[in-house]
């Protein structure tokens, strides 16, 4: 029986669809298991998507700039730059619904939906100032102080010692910077004195005493020479030899902008000629050294590579600090508060209710247009909704994707765009029926033509979504994600559900005999006029779809029929005759 082949294929597709649904439920359950243990799998909140700032509220962190004594307050430009860097940093951790803005003339406000994790708060609080400074002197640090008196020396202890260099330093590595007072302070310095309060606001024009991030060594550093703002990119990668093979060693690659390139070339030219501690430079983040590499070469192309005992994780962390750490000003957290939703439950309910009413109207309209065929549309939409829901759920759990009211509205609108695939497909089948094909062949031929159109148009939508997702930030990124998901889901549903279901129902007498409520009644579609259609030769019915010759024959039939109805005088029925078209 020739009938079984499309049905077999249909069943296979439907099984695949079930597999996809099963996998989606599975990954969600698995993620819940990893995050919250076995209990979390049945917990209600696991199966509800996370909501955005406007619907759920969240946490608001107000950051206040830390300004060194004598320095002027940050300019509006600096503040805007800081906002943009913090936004990038927050987006790197996957929270696209976070809002960041300035408040008053000084503060930056970060609003995060829900209850953010400590690591998220840290990534914002680590709003750091990054500098490159030459090392002047280094010593093993004593974290626990020896003797109680010298444990926390106050600056006044050394105030009698001269603080101005005896000779004017000629460059940032000049040891003339180490005045007797600085040397005394350095000797008494312990790493627990390194706090954001003390060092973040350090004057970039003066030397600085600080420790590395493990508090193993303390350093005297020269004035800042290259600012972190001049890093245009930083990434972690494996070191490759000149032959292009990997050494398996992790490194951090920095790319400077033109200003940074020339400044860094000056620094390395000088340091490369020096030895010992003076050969080192320190990368200082908020006054604490995150890395103090030695200089092996003069770097003039602005693309230094830092190697050492990095693991992939530590290399990546340093690269991120270099890339996103370069704020023009330092901040401290002024307040950290929970905030309520601005829209709240009534808005969400009203939106969902309105969407539901819209959906019922869609169902009614489909029933009018496609009779019982509409049930396929409705079930396809239900399947699409289920897949979209599960995907958003998973992304919410894993990547912190949240739904704002705008994205929920976008999802409701996607119903129309998804339903279009079915409409394109059904109309193609009807066109084939009009040409006198039996339903089974009409379904296959209509599918061949429809899928081309669906693929082309979905490709446009997906392209839009992909590019906006990569380039854009903030709300736009969230929108792009929903658009991309709904487009992909549309393709999955139309190929794995709508088409197989039609293949199956094409075998039902109700449909292939063209019951008048089937939506596929050839009589209603005008195919009956050509009595010979039912007896069409198999060669013609099975002719390759889209073949130009076959299409020409079809058009001839259509035209002949039209000519029949129009009367004998008009052989060209589509000849532009506007009055005729509008009157009839």
């Amino acid at each position, binding site marked *: 029986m020739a009938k079984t082949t499309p049905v077999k294929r249909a069943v296979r597709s439907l099984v695949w669809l079930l597999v996809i649904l099963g996998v989606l439920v599975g990954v969600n359950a698995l993620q819940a298991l990893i995050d919250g243990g076995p209990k979390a799998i049945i917990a209600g909140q696991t199966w509800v998507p996370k909501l955005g700032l406007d619907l759920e509220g969240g946490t608001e962190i107000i950051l206040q700039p830390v300004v060194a004594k004598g320095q002027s307050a940050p300019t509006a430009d600096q503040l805007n730059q800081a906002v943009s860097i913090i936004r990038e940093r927050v987006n790197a951790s996957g929270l696209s619904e976070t809002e960041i*803005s300035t408040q008053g003339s000084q503060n930056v406000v970060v609003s995060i939906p829900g209850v953010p994790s400590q690591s998220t708060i840290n990534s914002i609080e680590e709003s750091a100032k990054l500098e490159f400074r030459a090392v002047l002197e280094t010593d093993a640090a004593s974290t626990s102080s020896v003797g109680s008196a010298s444990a926390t020396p106050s600056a006044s202890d050394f105030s009698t010692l001269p603080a101005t260099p005896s000779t004017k330093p000629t460059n940032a590595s000049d040891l003339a910077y180490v005045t007797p007072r600085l040397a005394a302070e350095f000797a008494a310095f312990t790493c627990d004195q390194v706090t954001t309060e003390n060092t973040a606001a350090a004057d970039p024009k003066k030397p600085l005493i600080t420790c590395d991030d493990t508090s193993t060594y303390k350093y005297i550093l020269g004035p800042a020479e290259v600012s972190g703002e001049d890093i245009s990119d930083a990434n972690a990668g494996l070191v490759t030899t000149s032959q292009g093979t990997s050494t398996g060693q992790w490194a951090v690659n920095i790319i400077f902008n033109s200003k940074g390139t020339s400044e860094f070339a000056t620094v390395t030219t000088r340091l490369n000629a020096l030895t010992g501690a003076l050969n080192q430079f320190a990368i200082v983040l908020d006054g604490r050294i995150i890395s103090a590499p030695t200089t092996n070469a003069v770097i003039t192309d602005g693309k230094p590579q830092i190697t050492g005992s990095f693991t992939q994780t530590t290399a990546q962390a340093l690269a991120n600090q270099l890339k996103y750490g370069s704020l023009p000003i330092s901040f401290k957290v002024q307040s950290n508060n929970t905030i309520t939703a601005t829209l709240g439950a009534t808005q969400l309910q009203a939106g969902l209710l309105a969407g539901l009413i819209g959906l019922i109207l869609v169902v009614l309209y489909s029933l009018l247009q496609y*009779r019982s065929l509409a049930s396929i549309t409705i079930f396809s939409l239900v399947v699409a909704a289920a897949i979209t829901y599960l995907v958003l759920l998973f992304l919410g759990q894993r990547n912190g994707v949240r739904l704002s009211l705008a994205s929920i509205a976008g999802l409701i609108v996607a119903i129309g765009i998804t339903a279009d695939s079915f409409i394109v497909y059904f109309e193609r089948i009807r066109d084939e029926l009009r040409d006198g094909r039996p339903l089974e062949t009409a379904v296959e031929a209509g599918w061949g033509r429809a899928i081309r159109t669906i693929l082309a148009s979905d490709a446009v939508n997906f392209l839009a979504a992909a590019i906006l997702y990569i380039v854009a930030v903030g709300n736009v990124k969230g929108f792009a994600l929903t658009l991309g998901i709904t487009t992909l889901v549309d393709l999955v549903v139309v190929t794995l559900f709508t088409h197989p279901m039609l293949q199956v129902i094409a075998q039902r007498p109700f449909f292939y005999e063209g019951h008048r409520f089937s939506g596929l009644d050839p009589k209603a579609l005008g195919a009956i006029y050509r009595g010979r259609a039912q007896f069409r030769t198999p060669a013609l019915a099975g002719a390759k779809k889209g073949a130009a010759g076959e299409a020409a024959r079809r058009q001839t039939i259509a035209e002949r029929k039209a000519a029949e109805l129009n009367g004998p005088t008009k052989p060209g029925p589509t000849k532009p005759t506007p009055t005729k078209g509008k009157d009839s």
Partner: protein
Amino acid sequence: MASFSQFGNDLYTGKRSYNIVGSRRIWWIVSGVLLLIVIVGTALHGGFAFGIEFRGGSQFQISAAKNLSQTFAGNTVKAVVPSTQPVVTIVGANDVRIQTDQLTTKQSVAVTDALAKAYNVKQTQVANSFIGATWGADITRQAITGLVAFLVLVAIAMSLYFRTWKMSAAALIALAHDLIITAGVYGLLHIEITPAAVIGFLTILGYSLYDTVVVFDKIRENTSEDGDQSRRTFGESVNLAVNQTLVRSINTSVVAILPVAGILFIGAILLGAGTLQDISLALFIGIIVSTYSTIFIAAPLYATFRSGEDRIKKRDKRALAARESSVAGTSVAAVPAAK
């Protein structure tokens, strides 16, 4: 609904045909007038009205408030400045924060007074400050970069798929038409543009191209299958394709617009203005304009772009000549076929 199926049949066979390509000038004039109205209308208002998310605004924070109702706070501010849409948030345990459009100093003082009175607190407990834009220039810049990249790539992709750049050009002109009219309605009626509305515009960007590609795919099919020996002119082939997809266009736009209309009208009755209205208004206008522009702007434009080509000229000439002779000589043959 038999009559609607009949309508579809007639469009498919060509019995009923709307001569859209032939009467293109009328539609272009209609669109030109629409564009002119929205552009002049927007200009008369001095450009678009952007929401506080773009421009920043004023913020009032009442510390240690006893009444934490968001509606109460909103109404208090609206009583003083009726034109603004206050956004109310409860911060921490008992602080009420209200954000509004940028107010004048006089208005700010009035609002502070009203709030202090309404909440029965000292004026010093009502902090007033300026709040910056959450949708900063950097977001706009990134979004525009993305748009430009998308338009370039989509133009190339469509040119490759349809094997002619003229379809890309026609589709992009229709897209510009749709976006200008959709955004222009906001400018004309001076409706505030919020991030939700911008997301609505972006959705229309996708929808407009999507709709055009569906119809263009049928045009491509018809014009290539008709070939050089067709009895139809190129314009007639395009017109037939538009007519054959007309039922699809109507069904799709109705199905797309119903949920949007649901949100727009039902939401408006239940809630009044808000995020839902901002996005659904853009979509409501955009879907209608996109469907219109695909049929009445993009398809005729494409036919016009191609009409200058030698091959098309030759084909049209042959088709018209064949028609002349068939009217004169072979009409007899058509009569028996009809009987």
